[in-house]
């Protein structure tokens, strides 16, 4: 049907049904993993739980299994590779709240990661003259501090529309990095050594959480990741999540419909920042050392690439994207030098050919809930595409 020439047709029932079919096609059949997603949605709830448990068990066993083909190259320790993947996945889940759910482009996300890292380091490292607290306590503290910075940055800038936010966050990322260099208390390039770790010693007297053994850290990170996923999933399905999607799709319309857009944007920003801070604290603990060199714009863009690659707005996609972005340079060390170039090109190419990423978000059906989703999916499966329009008409009556 042409929409460019001649007067617009009055939308009749047929056209409406076509639109519904198109919509359902778009939402159910998008993605490289569309058949998988379809099959997933056909499973009953208990089956899904069992399957999820298996996936989680495999995820936990990953550093121990060390699968031959996908293991990292000899120079890179496999458990630490797993840890990097988990941390990137956690960061991507956090950034996904900001970019994917609420549609706010944050180009300085690494700043929150840095805030979390520095919080953990300054409260635990012997190099820091301040109050010392046990490492595990720094996780919530880092979250809170990062959230505070998120609100601090969000309140003035989120009143602005769209584009400016991108450049202001980019600037904020740079400011945090520069301040880490200038302020003597942050120790610039010298940084902080011996950042704390969770308590506990193994049988041989060495601490369980050491900087050379990634496995316990990986387990800790992945546990945190699962908790965050559950929380983020609940948020996504709540009133807050619906408000975010509404803001992302059309801010004016959302405002007119009575969504307090500013409030929810600040929430998205703060929650995203909190998760960023949390992952920063985990990363600082696992590495045991931080200085001002790690928190540059490039890392911010890598985080963004992870979210966009996985499918902005889809938390499973974010995990996948984060893991892939961390994994590829460690698996194929030959491309490690090219990673920024590659992910830069990936961003451009994805936006042109596949703006929804590997696992597209199911934004349009989110509001209607899972029941509707299953119904539409079942309907479009039941009929061959050519007659889908008329048959749906029949069932709808």
């Amino acid at each position, binding site marked *: 049907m042409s929409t460019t020439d001649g007067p617009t047709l009055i939308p009749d029932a047929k056209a409406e049904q076509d639109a519904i079919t198109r919509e359902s096609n778009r939402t159910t059949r998008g993605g490289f993993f569309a058949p998988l997603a379809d099959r997933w949605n056909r499973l009953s709830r208990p089956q899904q739980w069992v399957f999820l448990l298996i996936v989680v068990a495999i995820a936990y066993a990953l550093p121990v299994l060390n699968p031959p083909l996908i293991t990292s190259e000899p120079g890179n320790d496999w458990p630490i590779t797993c840890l990097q993947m988990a941390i990137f996945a956690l960061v991507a889940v956090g950034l996904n709240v900001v970019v994917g759910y609420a549609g706010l482009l944050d180009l300085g996300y690494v700043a929150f990661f840095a805030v979390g890292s520095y919080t953990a380091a300054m409260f635990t490292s012997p190099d820091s003259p301040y109050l010392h607290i046990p490492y595990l306590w720094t996780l919530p503290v880092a979250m809170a501090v990062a959230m505070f910075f998120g609100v601090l940055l969000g309140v003035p800038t989120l009143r602005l529309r769209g*584009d400016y936010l991108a450049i*202001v966050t980019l*600037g904020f990322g740079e400011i945090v990095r520069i301040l880490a260099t200038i302020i003597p208390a942050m120790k610039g390039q010298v940084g902080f050594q011996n950042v704390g770790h969770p308590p506990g010693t193994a049988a041989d007297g060495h601490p369980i959480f050491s900087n050379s053994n990634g496995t316990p850290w990986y387990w800790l990170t992945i546990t945190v990741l699962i908790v965050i996923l559950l929380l983020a999933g609940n948020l996504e399905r709540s009133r807050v999540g619906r408000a975010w999607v509404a803001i992302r799709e059309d801010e004016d319309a959302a405002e007119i419909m009575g969504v307090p857009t500013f409030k929810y944007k600040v929430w998205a920003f703060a929650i995203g920042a909190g998760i960023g801070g949390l992952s920063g604290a985990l990363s600082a603990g696992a590495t045991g050392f931080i200085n001002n060199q790690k928190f540059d714009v490039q890392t911010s863009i890598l985080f*963004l690439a992870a979210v966009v690659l996985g499918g902005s707005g889809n938390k499973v996609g974010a995990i996948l994207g984060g893991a892939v972005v961390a994994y590829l340079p460690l698996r194929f060390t030959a491309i490690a030098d*090219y990673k*920024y170039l590659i992910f830069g090109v990936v961003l451009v190419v994805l*936006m*042109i050919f596949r703006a929804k990423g590997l696992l597209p978000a199911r934004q349009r059906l989110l509001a209607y809930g899972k029941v509707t989703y299953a119904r539409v999916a079942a309907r479009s499966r039941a009929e061959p595409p050519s007659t889908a329009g008329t048959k749906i008409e029949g069932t709808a009556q």
Partner: protein
Amino acid sequence: MLSTLLLQVPMDDSWISFDIPSLMQNFWSATFDGLTFGAIYGLVALGYTLVYGVLNLINFAHSEVFIIGCYGVVFTLTSLGFGPNVPTLGPLAIIGDLLLALIVGMIASAVTALALERVAYRPLRKRNAPRLAFLITAIGASFAIQYGIFLVRGASPEPAVTMFQPTPIFDVFGTIVDSQQIIIVIAAIILMVATDQFIRRSRTGRGIRAVAQDPDTATLMGVDRERIIMTTFVIGGLLAGAGALFYVMKVPSGVFYAGGFVLGIKAFAAAVLGGIGNVRGALLGGLLLGLIGNYGQILLGNSQWTDVVAFVVLVLVLLLKPTGILGTSMGRARA
């Protein structure tokens, strides 16, 4: 042991200090230097402002358009025999070589800008992509170009190129103004006035203003929108290339793969300060930001502060007057 030692070290809380006497002492030299940098910011800011006016897009990759112009200038000058030392050529020969470098830089930047438009932005426009997609593409393209340069040229800056020995021209309030500063500021102002007049008076300029005001109506009135967009990118590229020559003149060893990035953000801040989408605003914002950055740097006593000051100014402007000093509209600038 180490920790107890560190605990006894008094924490230095004077990480920020205001060195007002130094600012007073260096006020005029900071002013002239700031104006010189400001002129360069202004030239780059024009590229942001023009594209934003026409497409409502922050062209993040404009900083890479600029840095490619810098490489064009440096390569031309090196192949003409310029080096770190002051060249021993006659003034006419130097002027000729500089003009050649200017032209090469402008063409290099314009070609990059045009390629960017064709490869990255046009496919998105065709499929009516959301704004977020444009921004992500822009930042991705900026990155790809930056690291493309990195892979070819490495991390270290290009060897410095000295174009001529700045000679003192006159003396204001006891501060010497040299020929370099005069050349940069005057040339930049001439270029910007020419651009302004082009957009206000020429037929293409009218087309640019029309598309900025209302793309659909402009198309209906017979303006070729695609051609106008391409022209806008080319003009932005040409000006960035010119800015590149002056940048190399002012900061001979500042040409490296990420050199454009921070300058680009500052130029964007300048564009917003003056009123994004407004051609005269870019000039005003550029000069102001150059001054503020330089004063801030001397006041706070560390060159890294320039960037922080620029960002803080950007945030303040966005908070207090998001439309900038001269207002944002290119279309409504003149009926």
